[in-house]
């Protein structure tokens, strides 16, 4: 295998940020403090939909220790947002959900800030609310009455309460339905899920004498945060500096601005550093959770179980602002197509506004929602046709060179290998080892998000390298992976590569820690930087060694040409004296593959880059009386292209499955009449170590053309299949599918009861 030919890449080396994190030395954004710092808190709406008639801050302002209060009236009237520019810092004339920011206070202590919040008087006039996305589609009530005046990406198609609508159409689905052997229609629903990072969203802001604001925060996207902050503050981007001391998890929940703007605005108002950190309650009522969704899916098959046509509609509940809803909903269309050949497709996505919390891009946005529907339905069809669900999948999966939903060509396809390996490992031949016990399987594909990366690499006089990247080490080991590639290319050890923190003022641009792209893209940029450094070193060595460049290679930290050699350290010292040092800028961008634009409409991500393939299999037992699920074994076979560090790939798989188990069985932000009923970590149920079995990872390596050494994106996929695999196993154990997430014991018990009566 590859590890034999590489010295650093492909090996299970300890991550560069590991020791600091396990010893408590690593400084996270939440640890960050400045002298004279004030504490900021945010007043949030208690009404789901209401006109704000009056905000009276005078009583609050009179409290000793309160240094500044801001509301919408005190700040530039800017609307921002990724797909649709519909978002404001504070509610303007209307509160759109319970938890909507109304005002912010900075005070000398958190306690005083909280007292001030309680002293702010807000007069509301209630408006009729919309909580149900399907109702919002029909209703005459407008959550954004001025939606037509908002700017949006040109690709986004909007209408009334619809923040975005996309389509994929292939062939003639209607004709295929008309003459199919059988047609199946099902409805599925999924719940609002918090990303569950350990460190809440936090930011400390300070303005310097030159009018530059520095924000120390835990964003996944420092450059996006810089741009958005500049818009909100009405400043050129160069006057906003974003730096990430450390980040305690993100999972897509920290992509977009969270509390950074409150800190920066309060700091401007008070001329003091201000720190704002969300509480658990704010996390569960006003963060950026995974959207709830409804999926309607219709599938036509022939007698042998071949997929002839599929039509479907996903309704994604964005909440009060579009957030990443339009993109998330659109991505669901590719997930619903799955790694399958299907004669015809007619898919539509709808992202809808409601009076609830706005939502974000939680790890593999739309992946688990669409996959849950799509893969459970495959099992339902297989059962009806009397087919083995594995066999039904194998009859339909894509092969090398088959077209994907957008007309792109599937390359380095491994879906069959993943399915067979997962099935073998779980013992598929014996699907019902005992009553109440069953095995389930599910598979998917997923993109490696593109976006550009730049790195600077400097060779130090001791021969070590410093890697400056704008990508955040979010905890996955992604930057260690990139550093392994750099070390490999420069014949260094991993410990010779120093990685700096992210600072938008100093670091080259990076598209950010998102979309399974960090190691992939930063790794490619490292390849480019290493090539440039080799060029510089060989040129310098040519003078020193009096040898031709063509004969040179890097070996064991030396430039070697025949029997002559010179160390990298020596070259760095020479270059310092004579040439300003060895330094390189490496960049990477993966162009989108060719596709057929007539198939895809109003889709912000019309075609997937370097897709990966994977299959999950689970063996579980269901208590026949209580409905309680016990997972006995869980297997993942995932194609990573090339395993740059198998340990951290396993870490990603285990963590993703844990989140998937949460989504499948226990997690849900529960709304009732617009109010979150479980806005605390007692009743918002993320799985504990006791709920997650040992996860068996099978790493499949089918190399890609675009990734470093053939790598594909790794981070997001593991949380896609758990709901479907678990749903199918529950069905194998009980005979029934609870079509809604989370599949709580109560829902399973109810489904079994319906079946028995």
């Amino acid at each position: 295998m590859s590890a034999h030919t590489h010295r650093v890449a492909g090996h299970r080396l300890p991550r560069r940020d590991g020791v600091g994190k396990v010893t408590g030395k690593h400084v996270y954004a939440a640890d960050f403090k400045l002298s004279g710092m004030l504490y900021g808190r945010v007043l949030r709406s208690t009404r789901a939909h209401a006109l704000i008639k009056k905000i009276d801050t005078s009583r609050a302002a009179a409290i000793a220790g309160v240094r500044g209060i801001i509301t919408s009236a005190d700040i530039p009237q800017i609307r921002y947002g990724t797909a649709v520019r519909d978002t404001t810092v504070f509610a303007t004339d209307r509160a759109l959900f319970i938890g909507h920011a109304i005002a912010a206070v900075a005070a000398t202590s958190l306690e005083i800030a909280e007292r001030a919040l309680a002293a702010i008087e807000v007069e509301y006039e209630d408006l009729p609310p919309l909580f149900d996305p399907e109702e919002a589609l029909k209703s005459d009530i407008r959550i954004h009455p001025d939606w037509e005046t908002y700017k949006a990406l040109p690709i986004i198609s909007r209408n009334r309460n619809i923040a975005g609508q996309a389509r994929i159409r292939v062939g003639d689905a209607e004709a295929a339905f008309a003459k199919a052997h059988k047609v199946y229609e099902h409805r599925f629903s999924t719940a609002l899920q918090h990303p569950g990072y350990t460190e809440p969203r936090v930011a400390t802001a300070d303005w310097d004498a030159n009018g530059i604001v520095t924000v120390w925060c835990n964003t996944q996207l420092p450059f996006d945060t810089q741009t958005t902050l500049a818009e909100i503050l009405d400043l050129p981007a160069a006057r906003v500096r974003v730096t990430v001391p450390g980040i305690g998890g993100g999972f897509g929940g920290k992509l977009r601005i969270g509390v950074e703007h409150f800190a920066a605005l309060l700091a401007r108002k008070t001329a003091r550093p201000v720190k704002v950190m969300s509480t658990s309650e704010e996390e569960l009522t006003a963060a950026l959770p995974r959207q709830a969704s409804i999926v309607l899916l219709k599938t036509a098959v022939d007698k042998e179980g071949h997929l002839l046509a599929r039509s479907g509609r996903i309704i994604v509940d964005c909440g009060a602002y579009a957030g990443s809803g339009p993109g998330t909903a659109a991505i669901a269309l590719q997930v619903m197509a799955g790694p399958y050949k299907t004669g015809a497709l007619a898919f539509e996505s709808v992202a809808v506004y409601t009076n609830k919390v706005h939502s974000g891009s939680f790890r593999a946005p739309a992946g688990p929602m669409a996959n849950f529907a799509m893969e459970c339905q495959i099992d339902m069809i297989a059962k009806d046709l009397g087919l083995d669900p594995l066999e039904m999948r194998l009859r339909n999966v894509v092969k090398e060179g088959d077209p994907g939903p957008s007309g792109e060509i599937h390359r380095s396809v491994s879906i069959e290998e993943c399915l067979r390996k997962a099935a073998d490992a779980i013992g598929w031949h014996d699907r019902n080892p005992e009553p109440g016990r069953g095995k389930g399987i599910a598979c998917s594909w997923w993109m490696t998000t593109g976006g550009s990366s730049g790195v600077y690499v400097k060779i130090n006089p001791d021969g070590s390298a410093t890697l400056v990247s704008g990508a955040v080490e979010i905890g996955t080991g992604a930057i260690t992976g990139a550093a392994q590639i750099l070390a490999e290319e420069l014949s260094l050890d991993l410990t010779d590569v120093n990685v700096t923190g992210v600072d938008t003022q100093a670091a080259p641009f990076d598209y950010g820690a998102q979309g399974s792209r960090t190691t992939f893209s930063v790794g490619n940029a490292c390849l480019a930087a290493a090539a440039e450094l080799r060029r510089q070193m060989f040129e310098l060595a040519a003078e020193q060694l009096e040898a031709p460049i063509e004969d040179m290679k890097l070996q064991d930290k030396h430039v070697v040409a025949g029997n002559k050699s010179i160390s990298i350290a020596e070259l760095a010292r020479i270059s310092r004296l004579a040439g300003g040092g060895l330094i390189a800028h490496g960049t990477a961008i993966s162009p989108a593959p060719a596709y057929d634009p007539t198939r895809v409409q109003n889709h912000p991500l019309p075609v997937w880059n370097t897709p990966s393939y994977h299959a999950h299999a689970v063996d579980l037992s269901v208590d026949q009386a209580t409905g309680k699920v016990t997972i006995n074994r869980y297997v993942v076979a995932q194609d990573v292209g090339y395993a740059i560090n198998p340990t951290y790939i396993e870490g990603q798989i285990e963590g993703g499955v844990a989140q998937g188990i949460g989504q499948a069985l226990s997690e849900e932000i529960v709304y009732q009449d617009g109010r979150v009923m479980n806005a605390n970590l007692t009743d918002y149920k993320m799985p504990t170590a006791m709920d997650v079995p040992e996860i068996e990872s099978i790493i499949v390596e089918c190399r890609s053309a675009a990734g470093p050494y053939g790598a594909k994106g790794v981070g997001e996929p593991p949380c896609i299949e758990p709901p479907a695999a678990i749903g199918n196993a529950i069905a194998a154990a009980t005979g029934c599918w609870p079509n809604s997430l989370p599949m709580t014991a109560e829902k399973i018990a109810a489904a079994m009861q319906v079946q028995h009566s």
Partner: protein
Amino acid sequence: MSFDLHRPATVTEAVDLAQRFAPTARYVAGGTDTVIQINRKKIDPAHLIDVACLPGMSEITETADAFALGALTKYRSIETHPAFRGNLRVLLEAASVVGGHQVRNIATIGGNIVNASPAADFVPPLLALDASLDITGPKGRRSVALRDFIVGPGRTNLSPVEIVTSIRFTKLPARSATAFLKEGRRRAMEISVVCVAACLTLEASTSRCACVRLAIGAASPKAFRPEQAEGYLIGKPAGNESFAEAGRLAAEASSPISDVRASAGYRRGLVAVMVERALTTCLQRIREQNQ
């Protein structure tokens, strides 16, 4: 959220402090209920009187026919105590499913009882053992049966200045066993959706039930003993049929609510299943003792 913390050295000192600062004072032991209630602004005491270090209140004492558990006993001590591996296993089983390790290392059983949550896990086992509490207050000591002590959700007949010092119960006769079952969405860090404690004694030479004590948590405003179910079993042969009927009767006697954790209907169904299963486990354990 600011308070003065007092560290009395004796029970008398603690009671004096409580009297001095009543009604804005609160005792705190492990603090695992109190601190959360303060954080969530459910309570706002100006004085916390830390009883965690009071002497003589953390011991587990065994006499010829009884046990006394100090009110400050931690779940960890119950989990690891050899005396609760036999027919008093209900205590070990309940203690080992409270919260997680960190909570069990600091939280006290006295706090669990006085907090009087309908879902408190350690209350049903003690109810099933017919436990009583020793209480010290300004007027001296008193003793009260646990079933009379808790009067409703979060409400007890303790005055704010009284301290619970220990919990007592008598040992079980031969041919007895106990069991505890808990259902929730997770396997740790979980508040019971329903929990059930059972204590079963068989007649000396038959397999008929001589004494049955059941206690059910999280299925009514306070943990309760389903007396009809208990009474029904007396003299009946222990086994699936009678246990299932006891479960049905217990479910009938429950009055659960629907909340974000579960519906009333599901809870009631759980009561029936769990009572039956807990009794079945007790029966199995009695049989194992006799082998």
